[in-house]
């Protein structure tokens, strides 16, 4: 074969985490739609949405129920058809802030909003694609939930020569992207065609870690079959955490470093998650806005698996579908064990950013003194000195943190993972970042 698979690449940084993805061979199942959906109005990085419906309104599946005038936002659509029966407030586990949520009671019919007239997809212009992506409420589904239409619109004069499709999924336990690649490979590649039209890159890389050899083979086959191989290359990567981090991926694949405080587009690169381009396919080819996603439910649940879940479905229903949690579970994580956040109750709904629900038993870990072993330095993909941040924060010296480039930390947790003294380094770093942000706000 002409060889669209490149040589395997790796990075000297990061950590090797023992393989722990038991759900990799579980096909995606569709979860029954919720009887009552709780849809938070803030599901993206940026500005929350304003509700477009009021109590008593009837809504159809896929109908826009929340939007914002602000640029850094993404509209929210009704995940089910039914009636708006009220509003509530939730504490977002990732943000810790109160957010408004719309309660929709299902009518059980799942009536879709009339799809728009079939479009001539080949004739869509760049701006039309971006507008459709915005309307469909698509955000980065890798976890950051950054509105995709912004990523698709780099400022004038910024040439994007490299488009990287991120199928690394380097977090332990999560297998949703893995399954999407195996089951919806064509949709990914058609969605990629849309991104390609927007960016007109010279090179496209599909990055997949080598613990997903079946996905690497499958994507290669599809690229060849669909005759797309002209400038698409598949890059197998050594399974190492956090390989899927945007900045790490760009460095490993292109050798370029995103400047501190800059964006990937500053070095002519864009990284999109494979589940995001699949959502772009759904929006533009099928006219379906973003109202569901694949979630890996794993850890100490009776039947772990990969589920396609409508947004607004309470975690309780997802977990009950999987047979419930085991007795010794005392912590529920949204996301993987490295970057996931604890969720204190099961009433919280699945939102755009939830790629994994992990039930686990946690035992309190005692923080010991730093013994300066330097393992956090070896682990840090950003070449920072993580242990110094801990020292500075203990002295309340946030200026020193800033000087030591704390803003460059991607909070991947590789440092804390490798710390023999079990220091929650990322927590200290978040404290410092919070303090620095407060200081900045006060100055204004």
């Amino acid at each position, binding site marked *: 074969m002409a060889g669209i698979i490149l040589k395997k690449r790796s990075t000297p940084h990061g950590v090797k985490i023992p393989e722990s993805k038991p759900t990799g061979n579980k096909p995606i199942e569709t979860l029954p739609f919720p009887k009552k959906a709780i849809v938070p109005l803030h599901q993206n990085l940026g500005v929350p949405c304003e509700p477009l419906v009021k109590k008593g309104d009837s809504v159809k599946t896929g109908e826009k129920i929340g939007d914002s005038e602000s640029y850094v936002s993404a509209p929210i659509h009704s995940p089910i058809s039914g009636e708006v029966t009220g509003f509530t407030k939730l504490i977002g586990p990732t943000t810790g802030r109160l957010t408004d949520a719309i309660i929709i009671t299902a009518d059980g019919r799942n009536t879709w909003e009339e799809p728009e007239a079939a479009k001539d997809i080949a004739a869509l212009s760049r701006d039309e694609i971006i507008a459709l992506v915005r309307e469909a409420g698509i955000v980065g589904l890798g976890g950051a939930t950054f509105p995709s239409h912004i990523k698709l619109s780099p400022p004038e004069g910024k040439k994007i020569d490299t488009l990287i499709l991120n199928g690394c999924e380097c977090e332990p336990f999560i297998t949703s992207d893995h399954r999407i690649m195996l089951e919806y490979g064509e949709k990914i590649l058609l969605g990629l065609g849309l991104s390609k039209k927007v960016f007109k890159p010279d090179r496209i890389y599909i990055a997949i870690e080598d613990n997903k050899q079946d996905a690497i083979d499958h994507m290669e086959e599809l690229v060849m079959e669909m005759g797309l191989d002209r400038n698409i290359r598949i890059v197998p990567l050594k399974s190492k955490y956090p390989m899927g981090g945007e900045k790490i991926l760009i460095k490993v694949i292109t050798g370029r470093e995103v400047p501190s405080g800059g964006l990937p587009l500053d070095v002519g690169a864009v990284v999109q998650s494979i589940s995001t381009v699949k959502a772009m396919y759904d929006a533009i080819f099928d006219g379906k806005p973003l109202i569901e996603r694949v979630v890996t439910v794993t850890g100490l649940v009776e039947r772990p698996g990969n589920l396609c879940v409508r947004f607004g479905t309470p975690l309780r229903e997802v977990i009950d579908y999987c047979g419930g949690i085991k007795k010794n579970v005392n912590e529920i994580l949204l996301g993987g064990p490295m970057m996931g956040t*604890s969720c*204190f109750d099961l009433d919280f709904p699945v939102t755009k950013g939830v790629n994994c629900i*992990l039930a*686990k038993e946690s035992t309190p870990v005692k923080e010991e003194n730093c*013994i300066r072993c330097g393992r956090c*330095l070896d682990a840090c993909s950003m070449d920072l000195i993580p242990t110094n941040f801990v020292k500075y924060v203990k002295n309340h010296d946030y200026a020193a943190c800033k000087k030591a480039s704390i803003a460059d930390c991607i909070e991947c947790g590789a440092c804390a993972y490798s710390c*023999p003294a079990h220091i*929650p380094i990322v927590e200290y770093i978040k404290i410092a970042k919070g303090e620095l942000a407060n200081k900045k706000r006060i100055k204004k």
Partner: protein
Amino acid sequence: MTQEKKFLVSPGPHLWRNLSTSKIMYLVVAALMFPVGAAIYYFGYHALLIMAVSTATAVLAEYGVKKLRHGEFTMDGSAIVTGLIMALTLPPTIPWWMAAIGAAFAMAIAREAFGGLGHNIFNPALAGRAFLAACFSGEMSTWVLPMHFSVDAVTAATPLNESFVWHADKISLYKDLLLGNVGGSLGETSALLILIGGIMLLVLGIINWTIPVSYIGAAALLSFCLGQDALLQVLAGGLMLGAFFMATDYVTSPITNKGRIVFGVGAGILTVLIRCFGGMPEGVCFAILFMNALTPLIDRYIKPRPYGSQRKAAQ
């Protein structure tokens, strides 16, 4: 239905490598068993007594200071490492109570007074040894030939002493230095066993190559340039023990790999300079202590360049 239950909220990450401070310490203790074994084989019951007293005193001293300061004592194995390493640097004929004083000084003053594990400036074991050398210079420079389990000790010069005379050929000298059949401190005589212990630590990932290689390399190179027998300089005295077990102490050596190379080279140069031009036959202890003092400075100036920050030249 899943029962009503509130769940724990804890900071991430929620996964740790299967490694802890105490595990590291006990692995070091395990690696130290090679030189400890050599010490007992060559110097008999008294070696065992010194090492036991030193280790026990170190643990007790840590416990006592922690109690006095209302701190929490955890048996993390670090006191055992300190006590053992200090004992290995002592002459075989030293009275046991001197070892106890040294170990108490090492833990109580050199470590706990500075804030405990992770906060000390100087390697506690070496600080304890230096304290003993200052207090009891006679006992600390009396050397005997290995007497195994007999009681007749024959005083003799160590291979680094000016008065050291070797009658046989060079090859047999190197062989005896490797195996440890020469005079010297309890744990420093057998270079081979130290090397095995050191390689064990390297393979387990407890230490990395930077300090041992740069330390031994710099010492060998400088001795060669000064017209010394480089192999003798490397194998004799405490260099191997220092390079693998003392200079590699995390707390008192630089945190970056580049810094560690600077540290190792500095310690190597100082060791040879003290041996050749100083007033003492051996220089490992003070060379490492001197570099310990320089460690904060090395860490201040040698830092990795953060990803995405401008290279110096571009500024």
